[in-house]
């Protein structure tokens, strides 16, 4: 079994497969112990519909998630998330991850179940999202991989899929990879392969000064799986969907590090510049008097959805409490800037946001909790400024776009198989996918089904020619002393995509964009240079970014009708 990508989904796929007793190789571009979107933490685990306190069933929740996105959602993968996410949490606990308030720090809190010591977020009545200590998760997964004998190959970038007889569309029988420190080229054989390399980034957003902060996701998560899958003949869906950017480290402020009311900071009180409290309302516009009401469905409402999988056009059925929109607030005389009012929150809620959520959430323990505290921030006395509406903390232009929320990705069947034999996908590699629990559940599920396939797969030799062509392709930039750097090419792709596939999309614009990208492919890619294996990895990533941009343009050209939910 071969697993490409050692983030959340990849680790779980490897663990599931290794538990079945097969040999597993895990290839990770960074360091499995900390790599991926969730390497530094996770504060809430969504859709744990089978936990003993849940007020919703997996079926109810999955149907709601599909309906909330107008049908443009991955019902299969989210059903797996709702059915098995909680099992993975219990697994994690057995590996040493912390999922309960075992020290009773929040004893008596409204969001705590006294029996299980679970802490919940958002909908306190229906209790299907758990507050967790996610900084403990990634190292636990890594340790479990090692304990089970998974061969972990770190610092190694998967570059292509190898198919039977080297034929596009053929059964996948292995992959190629290159080490980012030594430049060593690897050819890996496999009975079954799981792709878990997350989703494309840096298609529209690129900062030449701070490239690592171009996007919300880690810089080495560039959608390599999409690019190599497309070349191998994998089917995709919804790739024409993009949204106006919400996050870019360079263009906005540190995630979770500004005053806001969403996600990690739900449902923090806010005040305006003069200290006037910002009103909260339920889905029907009913003013909420108490903080506690922000965590409850409206009268007559079954449950509400909050967190990472929220819709841009939410249905009234599942709409949760929120502050009034900014334009309405300004009309009512509220003055900018607004601030998060942690001191105004009840003590246990304050400590849940600042200390637990901000702390256990990814990118918060050191950069926010530790650094802000060190610089004098005190949640008991300070108001933290807000820099945008919602949780955005920044403003973007309509052409500055991102694959965010539930973007397109690989098509899957009920076994999380792609259309190619021997090839499975999990986590954010899949279409309409997001969130930690989803990645864990689908990773484990894909791992199990991939093993089943691998057990019965006939042996097939690797095509030496296919591997050699790939080696020549990827090593070429190392041989060039002069030419283009990866940053220059990434900036060029982003510029073209902003111009040709921004807020407005017409066939002529898209065709013109495709021609511009074809030109980059033909004339600039052959000039790319890399001074060493590290720069080679960065260069190969941008070649994939270019491929993904073309995939998006082709998908856009194929679409003939506008679509609200695809923001198209």
């Amino acid at each position: 079994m071969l697993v490409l990508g050692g983030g959340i989904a990849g680790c779980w796929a490897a663990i599931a497969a290794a538990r079945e007793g097969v040999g597993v190789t895990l290839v990770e571009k960074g360091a499995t112990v900390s790599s991926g979107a969730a390497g530094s933490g996770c504060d809430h685990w969504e859709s744990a519909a089978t936990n003993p306190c849940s007020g919703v069933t997996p079926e109810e929740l999955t149907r709601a998630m599909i309906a909330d996105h107008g049908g443009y959602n991955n019902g299969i993968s989210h059903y797996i998330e709702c059915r098995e996410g909680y099992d993975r949490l219990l697994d994690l606990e057995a590996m040493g991850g912390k999922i309960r308030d075992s020290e009773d720090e929040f004893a008596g809190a409204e969001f705590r179940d006294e029996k299980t010591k679970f802490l919940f977020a958002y909908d306190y009545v229906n209790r299907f999202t758990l507050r967790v200590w996610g900084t403990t998760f990634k190292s636990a997964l890594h340790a479990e991989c090692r304990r089970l004998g998974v061969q972990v190959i770190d610092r190694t970038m998967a570059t292509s899929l190898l198919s039977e007889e080297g034929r596009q569309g053929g059964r996948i029988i292995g992959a190629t990879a290159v080490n980012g420190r030594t430049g060593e080229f690897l050819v890996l054989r496999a009975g079954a392969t799981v792709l878990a390399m997350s989703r494309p980034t840096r298609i529209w957003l690129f900062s030449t000064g701070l490239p690592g902060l171009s996007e919300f996701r880690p810089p080495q998560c560039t959608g390599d799986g999409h690019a190599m899958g497309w070349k191998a003949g994998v089917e995709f869906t919804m790739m024409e969907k993009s949204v106006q950017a919400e996050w870019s480290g360079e263009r906005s402020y540190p995630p979770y590090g500004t005053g806001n009311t969403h996600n990690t900071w739900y449902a923090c009180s806010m005040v305006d510049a003069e200290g006037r409290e910002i009103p909260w309302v339920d889905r029907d516009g009913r003013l909420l008097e108490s903080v506690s009401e922000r965590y409850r469905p409206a009268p007559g409402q079954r449950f509400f959805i909050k967190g990472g999988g929220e819709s841009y056009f939410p249905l009234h059925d599942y709409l949760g409490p929120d502050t009034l929109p900014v334009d309405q607030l300004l009309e009512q005389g509220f003055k900018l800037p607004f601030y998060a009012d942690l001191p105004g929150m009840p003590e246990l809620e304050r400590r849940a946001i600042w200390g637990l959520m901000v702390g256990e959430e990814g990118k918060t323990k050191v950069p926010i909790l530790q650094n802000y505290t060190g610089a004098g921030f005190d949640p008991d006395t300070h108001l933290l400024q807000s820099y945008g509406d919602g949780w955005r903390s920044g403003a973007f232009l309509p052409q500055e776009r991102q694959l965010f929320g539930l973007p397109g990705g690989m098509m899957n069947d009920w076994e999380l198989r792609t259309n190619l034999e021997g090839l499975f996908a999990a986590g954010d590699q899949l279409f309409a996918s997001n969130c930690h629990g989803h990645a864990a559940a689908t990773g484990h599920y894909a791992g199990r089904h991939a093993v089943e396939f691998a057990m019965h797969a006939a042996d097939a030799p690797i095509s030496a020619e296919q591997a050699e062509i790939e080696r020549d392709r990827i090593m070429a930039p190392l041989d060039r002393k002069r030419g283009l750097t990866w940053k220059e090419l990434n900036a060029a792709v982003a510029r073209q995509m902003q111009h040709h596939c921004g807020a407005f999309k017409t066939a002529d614009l898209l065709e013109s964009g495709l021609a511009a990208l074809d030109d980059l492919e033909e004339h600039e890619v052959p000039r790319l240079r890399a001074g060493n294996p590290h720069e080679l990895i960065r260069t190969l990533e941008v070649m994939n970014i270019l491929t993904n941009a073309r995939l998006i343009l082709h998908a856009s050209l194929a679409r003939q009708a506008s679509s609200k939910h695809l923001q198209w």
Partner: protein
Amino acid sequence: MTDRSRLGEGPLREEVPAPLFIDPELCTGCNLCLEVCQVDLMLPHPEKGGPPILRYPEECWYEGSCVEVCPVPGAIRLVHPPANRVNWKLKESRS
């Protein structure tokens, strides 16, 4: 207001913003930070025991795994670029 004096000063490589401040007095050169960095932006010091070199600082994702793993308190600090710093004020104050 943020107490700027406590955020540290001076990049290690002048031409790009430095995400990390490594105190050469405290750093033991164990290279644990370098091994957990998913971006792989550091190189080991050419001399054993020396602090790692920030070879590609602009690629930093500012998530802090390197700081978390460091066994010596204060030996390595992560600092957001100035354009990323945010403001706070005392609840009673009006500015």
